[in-house]
């Protein structure tokens, strides 16, 4: 009997071995296919980046020579496109941020700067000498970049190197770096880009926009203890049991609005959740507050909530605030308030207040924009009348309301007539500069059951 059965176990084992080999082989094949697909994708991105940078370089050279504004607008719009494409594709490649940050910034700013120059051209102004110098600078940089990419391209063709292998190497050996030609080239490009002189212009990616200082804070320094007191009073002295500071890092004062951040433990023992609050180090203003308590069923109306928010604001010392848009979510309603000075709506002075719709409690407050932008303004008299401004807009745009408003433009503000209305069944806001009649902006309003969004 034993003699008959001895082969059972080995054959089961053998069968298992064959099965697992077959399974492993199919896994291996799938892996191979995925790997090749990924590598193809990365190769495509790399060749695309090269091509886009090439186009940026060539178009920059042309733009410097060309003396016609029309031609320049076309060239600059191509530069903008190609630079954004290059940036977008570069950011999809498996390269650590440390190796691309400056390069991405260069491409973003080249695009942003071109857009800015297009606007100057459309305003009828020729290029200044500084602007030409900036273009020359950009060109030099992109030429250097392109040259390095070309070297890399021929190196890649000569050796057996896969871009996807970077993923593994970089996560394991970030600090060592420079392990291969690819990384070495990237580091050299990156170092070169870091030396780019700062571009002086007005756009969302300009250094001046990123490093700007808040305008609405006082100079007085506030200590932690004072800030704790301010936080406690802002939230309601009787409701706070304990105020705890978040741990600061050594560069805490280098953020946009240097602040103390606290969590507030509430008296009410039935609530385990903390509320959070940020108080500025200069002037001791409450920059934001958030109380993430769960909200029960809706008991009060949006109107009621708006009134509560308004009285809350005036209690905190913000008079002349005007409710604008609201957005309902998670049982609360978030209302945007903007400052109003002498009948002019000042959009940059924005405060957001979130009201819980169960009992009308204020559960959120955000005045970061307000303190960033608020300052004594010298509001000019409009040079155009409403009717003159109206003539600048399509006659079939049906206007429902008109008012004067200050809107942000880069780091400046412009005084505009705001026309809210409807065009072919869709809602828009059109802004006409009240000083020179230029159409500054068009916004589309999207309504749904929870509120309004602007795009």
């Amino acid at each position, binding site marked *: 009997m034993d003699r008959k059965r001895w082969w059972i176990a080995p054959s089961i084992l053998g069968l298992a071995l064959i099965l697992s080999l077959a399974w492993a082989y199919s896994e291996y094949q799938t892996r191979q296919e995925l790997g090749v697909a990924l590598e193809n994708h990365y190769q495509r991105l790399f060749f695309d980046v090269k091509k886009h940078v090439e186009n940026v370089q060539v178009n920059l050279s042309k733009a410097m020579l060309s003396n016609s504004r029309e031609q320049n607008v076309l060239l600059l719009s191509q530069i903008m496109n190609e630079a954004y494409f290059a940036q977008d594709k570069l950011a999809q490649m498996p390269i650590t941020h440390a190796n691309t940050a400056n390069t991405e910034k260069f491409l973003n700013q080249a695009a942003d700067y071109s857009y800015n120059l297009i606007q100057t051209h459309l305003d009828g102004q020729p290029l200044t000498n500084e602007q030409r110098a900036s273009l020359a600078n950009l060109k030099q940089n992109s030429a250097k970049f392109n040259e390095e990419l070309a070297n890399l391209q021929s190196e890649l063709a000569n050796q057996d190197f896969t871009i996807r292998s970077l993923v593994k190497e970089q996560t394991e050996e970030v600090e060592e770096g420079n392990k291969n030609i690819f990384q070495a080239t990237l580091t050299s490009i990156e170092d070169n880009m870091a030396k780019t002189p700062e571009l002086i212009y007005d756009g969302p990616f300009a250094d001046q926009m990123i490093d700007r200082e808040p305008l609405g804070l006082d100079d007085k320094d506030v200590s932690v203890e004072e800030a704790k007191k301010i936080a406690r009073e802002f939230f309601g002295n009787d409701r706070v049991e304990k105020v705890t500071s978040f741990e600061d890092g050594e560069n805490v004062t280098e953020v946009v609005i240097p602040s103390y951040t606290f969590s507030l433990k509430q008296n009410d023992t039935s609530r385990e959740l903390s509320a959070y609050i940020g108080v500025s180090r200069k002037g001791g203003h409450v920059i934001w507050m958030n109380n993430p308590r769960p909200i029960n069923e809706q008991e009060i109306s949006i109107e009621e909530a708006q009134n509560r928010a308004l009285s809350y604001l005036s209690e905190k010392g913000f008079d002349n605030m005007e409710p604008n848009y609201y957005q*309902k979510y998670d049982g609360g309603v978030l209302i945007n308030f903007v400052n109003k000075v002498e009948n002019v709506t000042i959009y940059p002075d924005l405060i957001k207040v979130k009201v819980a719709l169960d009992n009308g409690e204020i559960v959120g407050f955000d005045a970061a924009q307000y303190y960033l932008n608020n300052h004594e303004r010298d509001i000019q008299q409009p040079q155009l009348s409403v009717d003159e401004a109206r003539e600048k807009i399509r006659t079939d745009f049906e206007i429902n309301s008109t008012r004067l408003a200050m809107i942000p433009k880069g780091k400046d503000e412009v005084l505009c007539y705001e026309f809210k209305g409807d065009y072919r069944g869709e809602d828009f806001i059109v802004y006409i500069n009240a000083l020179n009649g230029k159409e500054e902006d068009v916004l589309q309003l999207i309504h749904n059951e929870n509120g309004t969004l602007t795009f």
Partner: protein
Amino acid sequence: MDKLKKHKKFIIMTMVLASVFSSILLFYEPIYYLGKAGFDKSIAPRLLYWGSQGEDVKNVQWQLVKWKYLIGDVDGIFGPDTYRAVRRFQQKNGLKVDGVVGPDTAAALGISLSEATPASAQGVNRQGDEYLLARAIHGEARGEPYIGKVAVGAVILNRVRNPNFPNTIAGVIYQPLAFTAVADGQINLTPGKDSIKAARDALNGWDPTYGSLYYWNPATATSKWIWSRKVTLKIGKHWFGL
């Protein structure tokens, strides 16, 4: 006697090896399905989840009340009761139990989800950004205090506005080697309601980090480079920096 012992050894060995192989096979399956389920969700046209409101939610609630999964009002707000009822329904009907009404669950309920916006602005909304950001927050910071979740969302949005980074939310989140939760697929988990709420607060402007661009967990950070950043503040387990 000896022979019998040997025989037993063989059988035991066979059993052990067979169970090892089958466990390997079983072990591989769930990961594959996790990725797949997540992917299906990310291309879904419209989802109803905790916090959603409107006609569609009413339709779902009406159906759930009819079939006795939900006892309560049909109020058009996706709250805790509706969430639990949806989960019960999904469990009973062999659907993925996640408390989110996607195309599959909607089909099983016998309703079709409408577009949220009127035809004039078809498809223009913020829901996609909201849900993607919520997933990133959930993958990266689900064990963190609420404000730590908002902070992670705020860092992603600060990157969108910074020239050193991609210019879209998806671009920032899916940038290779940027977030571990993206690399290991945790981003495809269904976000909890706190993550969704935190994503909305971050999109609406709350920034507890005051413009920070990086964060790292000192216990798990593998990159030395990250320590060369300027350190701003600590929220929960994460350090934030510029």
